[in-house]
């Protein structure tokens, strides 16, 4: 059974819709992981122990286990708890939480690296502790870790392929649908790989832009 790419165009619209879903899930999960990462970092550093401990435990579990396993936990675990979410939402939560933990590690280090004088100055000017964190310390910390967070987001794009196993019809699953009808796995997975590669390039360009916009040495 040689290769025959002429079967691909008939399924191009299915695949393109898959690409859109991949972009949608990546953007949603990236936003969740970014703001979740900030939240986790603040809790891990400043919250009282009864908040800090669960977040630390959660981070430890999520950094030590595979994303695929976490997706199964979230998808089936939520059902077990009586929460029946669509696969897309479960996928966003799973991917978002997984990368939030990694982002949180970066942001924690960055928050600690912001000069203490910044907090002191803000407090002297009459800001409360929370205000000083929100308006002075965190913006500086986040700006410092934009490049590594960007790398995490690019990893997130590629890992979004995993949500196909819980039934989100993104690029990987739509390719599988086409394969199910045509029995041409090589052709469609190769096409999917090309689309991922292109989206990946696009995302790298977006990240570079964000880095340039947010860096101080403009």
């Amino acid at each position, binding site marked *: 059974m040689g*290769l025959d790419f002429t079967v691909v165009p008939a399924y191009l619209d299915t695949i393109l819709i898959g690409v859109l879903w991949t972009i949608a899930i990546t953007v949603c999960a990236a936003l969740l992981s970014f703001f979740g990462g900030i939240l986790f970092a603040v809790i891990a550093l400043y919250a009282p122990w009864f908040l800090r401990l669960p977040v630390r435990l959660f981070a430890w579990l999520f950094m030590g286990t595979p994303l*695929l*396993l976490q997706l*199964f936990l979230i998808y089936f675990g939520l059902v077990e708890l009586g929460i029946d979410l669509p696969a897309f939402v479960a996928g966003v939560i799973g991917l978002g939480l997984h990368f939030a933990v990694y982002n949180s590690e970066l942001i924690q280090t960055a928050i600690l690296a912001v000069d203490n004088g910044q907090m002191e100055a803000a407090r002297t000017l009459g800001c409360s502790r929370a205000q000083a964190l929100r308006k002075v310390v965190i913006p500086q910390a986040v700006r410092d870790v934009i490049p590594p967070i960007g790398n995490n987001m690019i990893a997130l794009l590629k890992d979004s392929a995993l949500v196909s196993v819980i039934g989100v019809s993104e690029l990987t699953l739509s390719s599988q649908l086409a394969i199910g009808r045509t029995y041409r*796995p090589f052709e469609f997975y190769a096409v999917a790989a090309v689309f*991922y590669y292109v989206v*990946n390039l696009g995302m790298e360009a977006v990240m570079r832009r964000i880095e340039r916009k947010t860096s101080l040495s403009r």
Partner: protein
Amino acid sequence: MDIELILKVYPYFLEAAVVTIELSVLTVLLGLICGALAAAARMSRFRLLRIIGAVYVSVFRGTPALIQLFLLYFGGPQIGIQLDAFEAGVIGLGLNIGAYMAETMRGAIVSVDGGQTEAARTLGLSRTQAFRKVTLPQAMRLMIRPLGVNINAQIKGTALVAAISVVELTYTAQRYIGSTYKPFEMFFLAGVLYILIITVTGKGISYLDRKVRLP
């Protein structure tokens, strides 16, 4: 938490953990070989080799590992590559992590001060000798820790072969979640084993790193 159930199924998880360890060891070994070859190719004097190395790294880092695995396992037979799921898992994931390791190794080699090569050349060593006796030993020290990060990621990455039905930890957890409807217990069991494997490996790598670090 259903302790009784955990006690009943844990032997199957232990067996599965052994497969996860096998997969980790084999993919890391293959990854180190591919990584070293690709890093060498990318720094070669020959343009063609540099291009091949760059394309390998870019393609394998630019597409999802899951797609690479599916392409090899399901698409392989169409181009005459017949592999069982375990073999496809090792080769697919090994090639994938190899691309990341290539960048790690290249980064370490590039970060060795250029003056070292110059000094070695001045002392009469050939280009190859200078690389082998001066640059590489220093670079090897620098790359242990970042390679450790790659290895940590790869241990978790072996979970992907669950998608092509290799019976390892994640596949086993998934199967028992399906049959017992106890997702939290199964996650806990598999999670503990993953964390154990990762922690032990991490300790080994830090030990190695301390051993070879210059004072």
